[in-house]
């Protein structure tokens, strides 16, 4: 067993400086297209390349609905005048009408994660939050198996028909105050799957959403940003 202790010590500290300082490693975020100015005809052509209607042409500008972007890169690759792209990940927002947890929760939040029809990527990025690089425990964030102890309900996936009831039951089992985080394009807009006879167009169709974390999938840092927001720390 001693070999593991030594190995652990030898590895040193891997944890990201975020949120105290910026994370500067490569490959931590896929980024997003951002509002881009183009002559009107070009802008229209750019918006038409988007398969999920995340891009909208307004005059000589293309605006981005981050909740719909699924990172197909079609507005970047193969486009004659591509969209501007930014690597940043802090794109979580509080949904209009949503509320975050206040001061008593700042240092300790328990999270119940529900997979409501996820493709596996969002869930895998949530899993990474426990790895030494992100180590969510240092910020007072903990995954809990029981909704009875949960303050935050983190939902991924468009909400499939089979998961509507389990999701509703999990939400009902949580004590108030509670905060619902919808994570990923599917949870926010149905993504490429919904709406259909079997999948919804996001979590908000079933339970009220407070914090929205866009991305397909949002990288771990983006989910951390959303959690800090849910805790009222961002």
């Amino acid at each position, binding site marked *: 067993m001693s*070999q593991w202790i030594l190995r*652990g010590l030898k590895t040193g500290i891997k944890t990201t400086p975020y949120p105290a300082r910026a994370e500067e490693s490569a*490959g931590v975020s896929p980024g997003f297209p951002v509002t881009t100015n183009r002559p009107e005809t070009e802008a229209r052509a750019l918006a038409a390349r988007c398969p999920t209607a995340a891009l909208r042409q307004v005059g000589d500008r293309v605006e981005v609905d981050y909740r719909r972007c699924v990172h197909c890169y079609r507005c970047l690759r*193969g486009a004659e005048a591509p969209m501007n792209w930014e690597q940043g990940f802090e794109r979580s927002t509080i949904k209009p009408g949503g509320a975050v947890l206040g001061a008593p929760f700042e240092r300790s939040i328990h999270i119940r994660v529900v997979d409501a*029809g996820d493709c*596996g990527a969002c869930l895998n990025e949530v899993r990474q939050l426990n790895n030494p690089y992100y180590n969510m425990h240092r910020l007072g964030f903990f995954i809990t198996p029981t909704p009875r102890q949960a303050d935050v309900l983190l939902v991924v996936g468009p909400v499939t028909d*089979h998961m509507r009831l389990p999701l509703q039951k999990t939400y009902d089992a949580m004590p108030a105050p509670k905060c619902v985080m919808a994570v990923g394009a599917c949870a926010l807009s149905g993504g490429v799957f919904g709406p*259909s006879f*079997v999948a919804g167009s996001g979590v908000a169709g079933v339970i009220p959403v407070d914090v929205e974390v866009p991305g397909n999938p949002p990288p771990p840092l983006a989910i951390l940003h959303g959690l800090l927001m849910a805790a009222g720390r961002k």
Partner: protein
Amino acid sequence: MSVATQFCQRALDQWPGRIQTRQEARRSLCEIECGKEEVIEICAWLHRDADCGFAGLIVEELAADWELRYVFHASDAPGWVHVVLRGPLSEMVFPSISARVPAADWHEREAEDLFGLKFTGHPYLGDFILHNDAWQEALCPMRKRFDALKPVGHREPDPDWRPRRIVHAPGAFAMPIGPVFSGVTESAHFVLETVGEDVIRAFPRLFYNYRAVEKIAEQRSVDDVLLLAERFSATTAFAHALAFCQAAEQVAAIEVPGRGGALRVLLAELERVRHHAGAIQEICESTGLAVAASQAAILEEDLLRLSGAFCGHRYLFGVAAVGGLARDFFDGACKNCVGEAKAIGKRLDRLEEMLRASSSFLDRLEEVGSVANRDARSYSLVGPVARASGLARDLRKAQPYAGYGAFRFDVPRESEGDGYARLRVLFAEARQALRIMEQAAAEIPSGPVRASAARASSGAALGWVEAPRGATFHWLRIGESGVVERYRIVTPSFINWRGFHLAVENFAFQDFPIMLASFGLSATENDR
């Protein structure tokens, strides 16, 4: 004589005058058209005597006919056999081949649930993809007349619904797990029946993540369906996107340029290494070996970051395209990527050494969740799970695609079939994947990375890929107007979940998480 020709010849010899055969040399394909009387015998012959792998049952509702296509592949040389059974749409009853080809069991259940077909002789149909307690009977969403975008009037789920119990003994009880359970887990439900310590029967109830990908793909353009293929199981996104692209390229007879092929191999193997690092992490975590789990998690994140830095997306979205790749890479960047991956591979080797010297860890894996070779063969299991049970099937060797035939690599195989064997196979495969990446990056052909757009063509074809979890098969039919008319995805998780009960039954309760982790299956890849 090619393998396909041999199969045609042998089938004609055995069933003279009762079947028709057709050959397609370009696809090494032998198509056997038969009637309901012969189909069981022919499939059983292919599965048992000819040692073919069963790739799946593809049901298609054509203009006036049902077409049932049982797809087999030779296990040692390039060659495919499609057994085709046709019948008028009014006839909804077909013979079940499951008793002779157990691997077909779930395929028939799916066809019954989604098309409404009946399979005579099948012991257990119903309550499969659409759970009986929540969906109206006879919905048949895969029928052409069903509108996928129209909401269905749902019945309130029945709170008193209970799964069927099989164990009836004094003191027997059923332990339900899921669909929301444990920490960060995919949605799936398990009923474990027991009278005490050991699990007597394990019944996984899946399809909580059923998004009807095959249905919503219909009537969409090939480019739109590529988005679905890439995203329905995003932890192995590139493999599935590649299988889809290869099917589309077969239909349109597009030749992928050498550069595109080499880079596809590079990306597919990068994904395999990353997936295997994640699978190893889950095994370490399931046994509670915290430092090892952290070490593996560091390696997984390093590989995710490497993927992100190399191609822009941590899960390789947006790179695959019909005809090649959506973007090119600098040769230097590829060499750097392989260099970094190899450095990570060295650390993975070091982790394996340490794990193999940790007896308390090995105690949790050895002789736990064993799957016998005989069972793996009869269920036609795939991927690391099959290879750990001595079934060394690998589509990259058996049915080479994307130029894999030109690379030197071994297919790791173990014989014990337990959790430890599966762990060793994962490590060994990661090493082989790095070996392939190195060869792919050493000599990248120059030229375009993508074939210029071909004229639209219609037809149907199969694309196959050895995905990180095992063989995957994508059947694609494109209509005259260029839209997708049928998209059938057979995934390694769908095949291997069928065999999961073999590993759980007769083992102790507390080992259930370890067996779940060492099988490394994905519910969402299974559910589609």
